[in-house]
């Protein structure tokens, strides 16, 4: 797939790819051209590996936000054999930033929930760049409760810069809606698979993130605050976003170390936006593998396991003397 939007550190790759396609389009290639085509392919693969193996956290954020990066709706199309969308929160409206519906993945019937940022201007205006309002979180919970009632497992794809910070969102209880989701998701007696596919923006991401398995794509991030927000508060200017991105330790390997995610899911060479199909197929395999292993657990042990999974997270020192009972 030819990228439409090129990040600065991708430019050398794109330039080589352009040269390659020029060579390839020449009619009647001579053995020397064929030879240089082969060499160039090797070179491109090597360059991609070099660039993407060494992304710093700020570059990772840019890949996570890449305009061509596959989004929830793309994955629904590529992964699900069927998707029956279910709308509305029965209280205020239908938040387009969160999509929910029954879906079939292989022979698994699931409730599929995805935060969607929008792939074009029209979608982005509807989805507000993936920033959900309280009605979005309420919709998600309502459908999850439906799934639990009929014993369907739940898949949540997380991709949001954060919950929407607006007047209406506050009036309709953004904090309350997220809090309720945290509490209720921890008690739903069906398997929940959560995967951060792009941006895991703070409470807005966590509001769909209490699961039995939490995975993250290789070039996604999951953070308590956006790097820009952190930079604004800590260093008084968004210009320090890159510094904040380093300080917050929010990419896959650190999250794995902190026990926040169970797995960092590898992306295709050159990141997900270069090969939607390959990414979707890895994602599908990950989802199916986890659903299969989680469905063997009883509801009771599922809930206990989920509780302990979050219960363990946190780092502190504990001295022996305590007033604790």
């Amino acid at each position, binding site marked *: 797939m030819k990228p439409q939007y090129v990040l600065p550190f991708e430019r050398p790759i794109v330039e080589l790819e352009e040269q390659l396609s020029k060579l390839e389009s020449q009619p009647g290639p001579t053995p020397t051209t064929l030879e240089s085509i082969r060499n160039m392919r090797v070179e491109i693969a090597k360059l991609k590996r070099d660039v993407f193996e060494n992304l710093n956290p700020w570059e990772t954020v840019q890949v996570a936000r890449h305009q061509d990066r596959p989004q929830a709706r793309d994955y629904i199309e590529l992964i699900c054999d069927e998707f029956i969308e279910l709308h509305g929160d029965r209280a205020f409206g239908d938040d387009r930033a969160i999509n929910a519906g029954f879906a079939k993945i292989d022979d698994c019937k699931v409730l599929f929930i995805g935060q969607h940022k929008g792939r074009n201007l029209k979608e982005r205006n509807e989805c507000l760049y993936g920033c959900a309002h309280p009605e979005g979180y309420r919709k998600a919970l309502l459908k999850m409760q439906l799934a639990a009632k009929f014993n369907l497992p739940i898949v949540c794809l997380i991709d949001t810069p954060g919950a929407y910070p607006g007047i209406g969102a506050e009036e309709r209880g953004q904090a309350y809606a997220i*809090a309720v989701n945290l509490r209720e998701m921890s008690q739903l007696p069906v398997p929940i698979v959560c995967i951060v596919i792009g941006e895991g923006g703070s409470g807005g991401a966590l509001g769909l993130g209490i699961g039995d398995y939490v995975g993250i794509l290789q070039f996604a991030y999951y953070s308590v605050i956006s790097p820009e927000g952190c930079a604004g508060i800590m260093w008084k200017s968004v210009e320090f976003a890159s510094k904040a991105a380093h300080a917050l330790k929010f990419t896959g390997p650190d999250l794995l170390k*902190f026990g926040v995610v169970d797995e960092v899911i590898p992306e295709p060479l050159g990141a997900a936006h270069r090969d939607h199909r390959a990414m979707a197929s890895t994602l599908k395999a990950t989802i199916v593998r986890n659903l299969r292993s989680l469905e063997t657990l009883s509801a009771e042990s599922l809930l206990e396991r989920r509780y302990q999974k979050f219960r363990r997270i946190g780092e*502190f*020192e504990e001295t022996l003397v305590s007033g*604790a009972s």
Partner: protein
Amino acid sequence: MEASRMTSDPPPQQRGFDNGETPRKKRGVPEGLWIQCESCKSTVYRKQVEQNLYLCPDCSHHFIVPGRVRIQQLLDEDSFEEWFDNLTSKDPLGFVDSKPYKDRLVAEQKKTGLKDACIAGRGYMRGRPLVFALTDSSFIMGSMGSVVGEMLTRSVEEATRLKLPLVIVSGSGGGARMHEGILSLMQMGKVSAALGRYQSAGGLFISVLTNPTMGGVAASFASLGDITLAEPKALVGFAGPRVVRATCKIALPAGFQTSEFLLEHGFVDRIVPRPELRTEISRLIDYCGV
């Protein structure tokens, strides 16, 4: 319209936001014999404010109460048994902003006499036994990192085990503590899950919102009360007012994100002035018969 844009914000360096160096006039009663009330602007004798439950004697403005004083105000004399005061924060990220987080913790501990932003334990309120916890906004804006999350979770679990009512008074302008990154975010899930178990087991959780309760604290335990009370005119919300103004690019409505705003929109059961808090909570506990 122009005036309501971001330009109405003072430049960042003048905001007096938390960088650990600027004096924090907004929080608590400032040092000095006389202080100015933030609300009615009258100059009042500090001792008089302190003796008056940290209320302005002229306009009843609710100043921020230090955690230890809050316990004296709410619980029966000498009935509080403090728990988990052996937990201290680590620096899992190696976080450095204007100073290293490690140094900041030491400085905050010195300044406040607290180990972290949470005090928890059990006590009695007008003779009723309960588990009581609070977040103290004088310690890194009352923000929740691993220690606060762990202390609250353990308190909820103890309340579940002991079958006692639970009261948490939140004062957390900082929400989830940035200095501990993703671990702070996860504390929201951890405490909320514990509350889920407690409430399913029949526990009564009374959440008391005080000025300020924002971000990740508002979006977790503070919003999950079986009954939610708020002190008058407290700032309570998800996104900070500055962020909301920057997003919406219009002037915020009067009283936006105050206790009264929350009451109007249905997210608070009652607004309770500080002098009545103890009586009200006791009465509510009696109604629930726990």
